[in-house]
């Protein structure tokens, strides 16, 4: 093999504390090195040209560049050597800037270290093999999991671009949390007025297949070629026949069913359409509330249904969808304030959560938009909002900021004042977080125009006094304990990961943080990608987000899918594991440890079973390589021999 070594001075960044000339000179003593030089800026256009010239002139078969971190310029140099006719993997970098010149002043020690790093790179390169990406066809259908506003946006953007979209929603209707909101901050526009048309769009797009009241059962395959099993849960109503006329709801005798859409503030029927704008607008029987299912007698809805859509014997069924990419938009859940026993949520009917207050404000809510308190239906005169219930609090394992509470408190206080101009609103807060566009102005309006009283401090206790509640807390600005009497207390419960998020993550083989929020590929530069190729994130499943951010991410995820689908095939990274079949003993240890399910069995003609890597699924972590006892499975470009060569270059 003929190797060329290029030692970059990086101006004085490297040459300042490393004798680059000596490093290049020393490289000529290493095996297979036939050319070595130093250069002021190897990554510059002329620097790259120099490499390309040397490849031609000295018939180089491999190139080592000693310069900055490969995380910086490896792609640059790979392209450069490729242009000169070498395989891009016949290239190695020695990091003599971040790991040498920038961290030590001793020129002699640095130079020695740089020499050894070059030697390691040379010895590895001597074991490199040309690698070639393979191309796999892309199935240009996309699965969106979650029909909240982020998922809806992603689905619509994809559908608008002409893709076939499969949208899976766990609940009976799409719309998510946003569908429950009355107005949105900071514009106070009607939530259902802006979301509704989008929901209708979803229903009307022919290229969107909506599976509502359905859940993802399993995911297999890889980018471009996923197979997804979806369980359509039994609704006991044939949705093809149901027209959403609502007759069944009128006649259903089980009228005391807890209304979950209204956050248990009201009642509904056992057969139900959750809210008037529901998409799909189809009825479903809530089995545990249904008289027929609980007593065996009733069947009123079946008799009354004009289209005969009710089928009590319906069972869950499974559908299989083949897609090329997946957008995960499973949203969030709200913190259950039960751990804060001192606040009395659940014990006192007039201590409610923010989302409950949202339903109270809503014209389609349990009180028809009249602000009343749940206990006795009286209009409140004093309302206290408590911020950070389940946010920024380590004691309940929620140390993070939920990001939206400050804003929705301000909105709800403003709306309360709009509905009941005489009401007094108090907000107990820790800090006000209002970093969005027009957000701070919005909070200021609440304070200045609407006279909402902000008290900086934690609430210690909430207890009843007669038919009112006493909110006891600190005012840290006054440095005093304060008490506020209120008719209604709204706990601004924080955002937490959606229930079932971890289980879904495991099906998708994506990672999640300790709170169950999905991990993006890079916190800044790859915010909607996951580490599983072909799976993208949108909305609050990745972390607390408000509506504009969720919508933006929905569009961003759609853009990623469209970019992926712009090609007919995808090139797979060839730095993946490969099996030397003759050495594989069929022990299956690699299959059991692979985090991506990228290894499967292959049966040879003689009946023996061998591990087989799905190169498009393999992410190149090398866990299988470390696990394989006879080392039959090797991670290309990081093989045992390559790593041992680096090690041996250093000590033997």
């Amino acid at each position, binding site marked *: *093999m*003929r190797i060329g070594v290029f030692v970059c001075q990086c101006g004085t960044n490297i040459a300042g504390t490393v004798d680059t000339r000596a490093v290049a000179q020393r490289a000529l003593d290493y095996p297979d090195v036939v050319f070595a030089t130093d250069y002021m800026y190897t990554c510059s256009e002329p620097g790259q040209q120099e490499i390309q010239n040397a490849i031609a002139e000295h*018939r180089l*078969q491999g190139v080592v560049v000693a310069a900055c971190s490969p995380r910086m310029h490896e792609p640059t140099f790979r392209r450069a050597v490729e242009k000169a006719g070498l395989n891009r993997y016949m290239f190695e970098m020695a990091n003599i800037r971040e790991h040498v010149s920038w961290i030590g002043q001793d020129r002699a020690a640095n130079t020695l270290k740089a020499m050894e790093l070059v030697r390691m790179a040379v010895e590895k390169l001597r074991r490199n093999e040309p690698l070639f990406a393979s191309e796999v066809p892309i199935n240009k259908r996309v699965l969106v999991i979650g029909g909240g506003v982020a998922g809806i946006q992603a689905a619509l953007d994809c559908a608008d671009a002409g893709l076939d979209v499969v949208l899976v929603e766990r609940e009976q209707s799409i719309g998510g949390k946003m569908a429950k909101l009355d107005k949105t901050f900071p514009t106070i526009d009607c939530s259902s007025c802006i979301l509704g048309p989008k929901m209708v769009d979803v229903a009307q797009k022919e290229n969107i297949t909506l599976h509502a009241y359905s859940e993802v059962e399993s995911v297999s395959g890889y980018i471009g070629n996923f197979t997804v099993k979806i369980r359509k849960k039994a609704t006991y109503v044939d949705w093809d026949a149901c027209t959403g006329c609502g007759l069944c709801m009128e006649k259903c005798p089980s009228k005391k069913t807890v209304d979950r859409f209204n956050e248990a503030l009201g009642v509904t029927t056992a057969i139900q359409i959750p809210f008037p704008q529901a998409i799909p607008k189809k009825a479903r029987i809530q089995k545990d509330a249904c008289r027929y299912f609980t007593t065996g007698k009733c069947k009123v809805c079946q008799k009354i249904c004009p289209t005969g859509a009710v089928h009590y014997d319906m069972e869950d069924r499974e559908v299989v969808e083949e897609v090329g990419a997946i957008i995960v938009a499973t949203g969030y859940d709200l913190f259950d304030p039960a751990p804060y026993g001192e606040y009395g949520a659940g014990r006192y009917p007039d201590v409610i959560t923010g989302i409950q207050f949202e339903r109270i404000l809503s014209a389609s809510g349990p009180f028809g938009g009249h602000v009343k308190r749940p206990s006795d239906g009286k209009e409140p005169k004093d309302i206290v909002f408590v911020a950070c219930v389940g946010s920024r609090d380590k004691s309940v394992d929620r140390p993070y900021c939920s990001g939206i509470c400050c804003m929705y408190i301000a909105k709800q206080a403003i709306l309360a004042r709009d509905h009941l101009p005489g009401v007094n609103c108090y907000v107990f807060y820790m800090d006000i977080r209002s970093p969005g566009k027009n957000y701070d102005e919005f909070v200021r309006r609440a304070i200045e125009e609407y006279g909402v009283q902000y008290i900086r401090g934690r609430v210690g206790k909430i207890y009843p006094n007669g038919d009112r509640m006493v909110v006891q807390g600190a005012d840290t600005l006054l440095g005093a304990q304060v008490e506020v009497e209120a008719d209604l207390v709204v706990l601004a419960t924080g955002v937490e990961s959606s229930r079932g998020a971890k289980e879904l993550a495991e099906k998708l083989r994506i990672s999640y943080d300790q709170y169950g929020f999905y991990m993006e590929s890079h916190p800044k530069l790859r915010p909607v990608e996951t580490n599983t190729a072909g799976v993208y994130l949108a909305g609050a499943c990745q972390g607390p987000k408000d509506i504009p951010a969720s919508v933006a991410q929905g569009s961003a995820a759609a853009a990623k899918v469209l970019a992926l689908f712009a090609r007919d095939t995808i090139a797979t990274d060839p730095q993946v594991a490969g099996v030397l079949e003759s050495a594989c003993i069929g022990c299956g240890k690699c299959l059991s440890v692979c985090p991506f399910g990228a290894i499967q069995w292959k049966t040879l003609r003689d009946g023996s079973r061998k591990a087989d890597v799905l190169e498009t699924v393999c992410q190149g972590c090398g866990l299988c390589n470390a696990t394989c006892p006879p080392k039959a499975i090797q991670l290309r470009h990081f093989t045992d021999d390559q790593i041992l060569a680096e090690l041996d270059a250093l000590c033997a």
Partner: protein
Amino acid sequence: MPKVVTNDNPYLPHMGTIREIIQETPNIKTFRIVLDDPEEMAAFRFEPGQVGQLSVFGVGESTFVINSPPTRREYLQFSVMKTGEVTRALHRLSEGDPIGVRAPLGNSFPVDELKGKDILFVGGGIGMAPLRTLLLTMADRREEFGDITVIYGARSPQDLCYRYEFDEWKAAGVNLILTVDREFPGWEERVGFVPTVLAEEAPSPFNRVAITCGPPIMIKFVLAGLKELGYEDDQILTTLERRMKCGIGLCGRCNIGDTYVCVDGPVFSNTQLRRMVSEL
């Protein structure tokens, strides 16, 4: 016996230099090697069929037939298919690189006994290499031999070695029949497996010796085919391969019964093969 260019240490390779490398097929390269000592090169003698051990120092040695003919002595030619550690290392070498050579080793084709006879070569893939040395020897001494027919096949046209000299073979009066396993665009020669083409061609066994080399499965069917055509065991020659280390009959691994392929072979007649224990 040909003169053995060696000192008293048969393990010590002679240094040579790669003069030329030819990429024959995607995984076969041909190396043209010249011994560094001009006197040694001038004195080097071998017989067709003999092998040499090529050394990549630091990796090891491997055995290959010298596929250039003794009649052409400006270089020694070896063709190497990339299969293992040493062959992978050989494929990484460049023109001008040094290389170690221990040669000639092993027996050879009985050229004198073949004089005056019609010859049939049946080769598959890299198996053409040992045939080439004899074929070119005969081409260079054309008048001493009768009809020379070559049936040479590979999986695809690009898997045929020595394509660049087929014309030369034909010009020397060789009846060259080429075949590939299936149809390929632009391929105008035969299509089909070598044993099938052999059956179709059916060269008469009268006064003819068949020499065959190729993958084991091909050999198996070619031997059966030749039998069918009436060839006697002593009219069939083939070459055997075994894992070898020393190449000089000592290290003990290349035996088939009491026959050591490295010193008793690689060339065997079918008569000899039949006498061996069945451990192929």
